[in-house]
């Protein structure tokens, strides 16, 4: 039973560039959430995708966008990168639909460095 996987593991970009991060959810899960974790801080919620639509969004600018595919995998896109976007980006998967304890399982993250 595969867990949550993310790619790439590390990435270096320069200011103004665009980046795409990828996530495959845990087998059987249909919901993907993305978090940004700056050094020394707890993860901050970016958005969540369910049934290929953005279901909820945190306090992040429109430069952050996402997509969910029919196989439930997801992408996070960040445009016009800023130095402050340097962080660990975490993907978490869960089973949507509600009514049950919706434990989220996290992937190992993608470390993004913006120079």
């Amino acid at each position, binding site marked *: 039973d595969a867990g949550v996987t993310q790619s790439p593991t590390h990435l270096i970009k320069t200011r103004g560039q665009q980046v795409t991060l990828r996530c495959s959810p845990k087998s059987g899960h249909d919901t993907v959430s993305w*978090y940004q974790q700056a050094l020394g801080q707890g993860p901050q*919620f970016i958005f969540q995708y*369910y049934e290929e639509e953005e279901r909820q969004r945190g306090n992040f600018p429109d430069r952050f966008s996402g997509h969910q595919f029919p196989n439930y995998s997801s992408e996070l896109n960040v445009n016009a990168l800023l130095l402050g976007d340097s962080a*660990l980006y975490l993907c978490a998967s869960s089973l949507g639909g509600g009514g049950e304890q919706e434990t989220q399982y996290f992937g*190992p993250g993608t470390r993004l460095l913006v120079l």
Partner: protein
Amino acid sequence: LAKTTQPISMDSYEGQEVNITCSHNNIATNDYITWYQQFPSQGPRFIIQGYKTKVTNEVASLFIPADRKSSTLSLPRVSLSDTAVYYCLVGDPSGNTGKLIFGQGTTLQVKP
């Protein structure tokens, strides 16, 4: 989602029991309490979740008093590999919000 307050850091020694307390004075009726563990450069890992009284699994125990305004994560006989950041979260897992709100967590340092 309710805010939580927990100590920034704690030190312990191998073999000791560690108790990390979390305050959540504004917890709502439908909220559950969930603890995550995170090692450096890894994603958080679910440890335990509870609603009231006591919950125990193979990793930890969670104690929740009757008023539910606080909770205590208990780690029995810690080892060096338990050195990590521990996050306490409260929220309604059935509300389809899926939005976990993390604080700064408690950094636990286990010494030999």
